[in-house]
């Protein structure tokens, strides 16, 4: 299809539309608002549902309602709004209905600011709300990748009857880049709607969608089923990109926009003689632990870089399990790390660990937030 110049938020909205979204419920919040604005005219033009809700709390519960009816429903927001959705997301997870959410992350905590950030890593990759579960979290690094990932979100959500979150920092939502749009997916037919869908009990017995299981054994059974589903997702859906890892002595690990910045860092570092590779997780959950673990063995050190104080860092440490030293460089508050800063941090890591034997310095895990 056509290649055009797209603003990130609008590209994500159009990709969701082409991916089949039938109902959008949202609330304005910077730096996500263009996504909602785009939906506000595009969805009615296509005869689909758009509604600006009174809050993010209401938005996610509208998504929950529509999704219970088997509709492809989504919302989008930014960090403080995602906090407000945690309750609804927990109910959606407990009810096994598919739903899609976009998080265009900004600086926190609290009201924070409207600058780009990756500080929602914890709140979207762990249980987004009370209970034991994980949504699938996809982290694009370019507008094109955001389009491609967004296009597949509904199929992924329906395949596992789970929540899928597309998470990008505010800069990706705001930047303009060329992107190619996928074709318009045909609408769901009645027969294709999930057999869980609540659409009136005509010609069948009634259906109930609930996350309430008063009997502890029943609730444990639900949890075991959820965990089995999460295990399947872990095995089947881990995605990542790696560059120049084959001969690398050091590894950069970064996601989203920072992952993209690190490609520049990698080129510069290689030209300086630092043999570094890049590992960029695309699924933040399931985190690509096994591959990172393989790569960690034999590396002199890993440098994790994020736009937060070290959140994915914890998953990297869990993956590496002491196989090599893990260092950290992060910027917070909406500050974007520049290639030169990361390069300097990498040069420092290379200097410190230039003679380190593999896997020896188990206790050497330091962190740095400038």
């Amino acid at each position: 299809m056509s290649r055009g110049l797209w603003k990130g938020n609008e590209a994500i909205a159009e990709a969701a539309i082409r991916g089949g979204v039938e109902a959008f419920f949202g609330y304005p919040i910077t730096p996500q608002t263009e996504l909602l604005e785009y939906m506000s005219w595009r969805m009615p033009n296509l005869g689909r549902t758009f509604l600006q809700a009174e809050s993010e709390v209401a938005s996610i519960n509208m998504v929950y309602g529509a999704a219970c009816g088997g509709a492809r429903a989504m919302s989008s927001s930014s960090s403080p709004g995602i906090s407000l959705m945690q309750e609804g997301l927990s109910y959606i997870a407990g009810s096994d209905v598919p739903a899609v959410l976009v998080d265009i992350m900004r600086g926190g905590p609290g009201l924070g600011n409207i600058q780009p950030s990756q500080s929602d890593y914890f709140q979207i990759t762990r249980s987004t709300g009370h209970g034991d579960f994980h949504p699938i979290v996809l982290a694009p690094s370019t507008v094109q990748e955001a389009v491609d990932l967004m296009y597949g979100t509904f199929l992924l959500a329906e395949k596992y009857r789970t929540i899928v979150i597309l998470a990008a920092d505010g800069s990706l939502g705001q930047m303009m880049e060329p992107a190619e749009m996928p074709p318009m997916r045909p609408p769901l037919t009645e027969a294709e709607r999930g057999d869980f869908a609540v659409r009136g009990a005509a010609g069948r017995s009634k259906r109930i969608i609930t996350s309430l299981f008063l009997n502890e054994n029943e609730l444990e059974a639900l949890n075991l089923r959820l965990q089995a589903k999460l295990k399947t997702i872990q095995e089947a859906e881990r995605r990542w990109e790696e560059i120049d890892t084959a001969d690398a002595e050091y590894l950069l690990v970064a996601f989203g926009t920072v992952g993209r910045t690190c490609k520049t860092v990698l080129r510069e570092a290689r030209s300086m003689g630092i043999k570094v590779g890049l590992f960029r997780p695309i699924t933040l959950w399931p985190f690509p632990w096994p591959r990172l673990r393989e790569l960690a063995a034999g590396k002199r050190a890993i440098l994790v870089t994020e736009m937060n104080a070290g959140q994915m860092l914890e998953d990297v440490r869990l993956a590496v399990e002491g196989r090599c030293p893990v260092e950290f460089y992060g910027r917070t508050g909406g500050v974007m790390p520049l290639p030169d800063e990361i390069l300097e941090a990498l040069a420092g890591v290379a200097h410190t660990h230039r003679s380190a034997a593999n896997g020896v310095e188990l206790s050497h895990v330091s962190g740095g937030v400038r």
Partner: protein
Amino acid sequence: MSAVIGISEEMIVEQGNVMYKRPDALSDAFTHYCPGCTHGIIHRLIAEAIDELGIKDKTILVAPVGCSVLMYHYLDVDAVEAAHGRAPAMATGLKRTQPDKVVFTYQGDGDLAAIGTAEIFHAANRGENICVFFINNAVYGMTSGQMAPTTLPGQVTTSSPQGRDVKLHGYPIRMAEVIAGLPGTAYVVRRSVYDARTIRQAKKAVVMAFKTQLAGLGLSMIEFLSSCPTNWHMSPPDALTWIRDTMVPYYPLGDFKVTDEMKALEG
């Protein structure tokens, strides 16, 4: 149940003696409600109205958090379970994507008049084409009798042991009057079920509420004054009397919003 005393339902039907039976839309299930609680009566009125209007196959219940949390077991219609207070938002999502269905919420006073005020207020203001059945029993029933937003001044509860002091806790909210003030609503009334007369009036209102939605006229809400003998520490008959003598003076029964289109439907 009649099989227990040796008379099957079929035998009664054969003899043509059926005066009163379980509506189709009411499940053949034991409820967990306390003796004397009027949830059961209101459930039945809703089921009777669903039967009369022939909408059982296209009705979706949005169940609440509170004493009626298990309501989906008692009505034989498709159902979802909302988070506390969020039923109108969930109903909005369901109705906007399935406008040909009949969607209703059933909510208690803590649910609708405290934690879910934003959701009911805006669903009503948007004129969502849904029915809201609001059960006001002046107390949090399921958590065992704490002060509700509708608890009367001076009323003793487990969280207002000295009685509700309006200077400390504010005033009980007359939700029917508040919601009726929003232009998006088409039919907002207050009813009770403390005797045969009020039950008949309530039944008519439930039918009207569903008719409002079927005609696409906007949000309808019935506030029911309902009893809670257990947490009021009263016998069931005394609880019914308390509704009449103590609740009704503060929460007058009546019609607070009946639009002209609704009057035409009624006529």
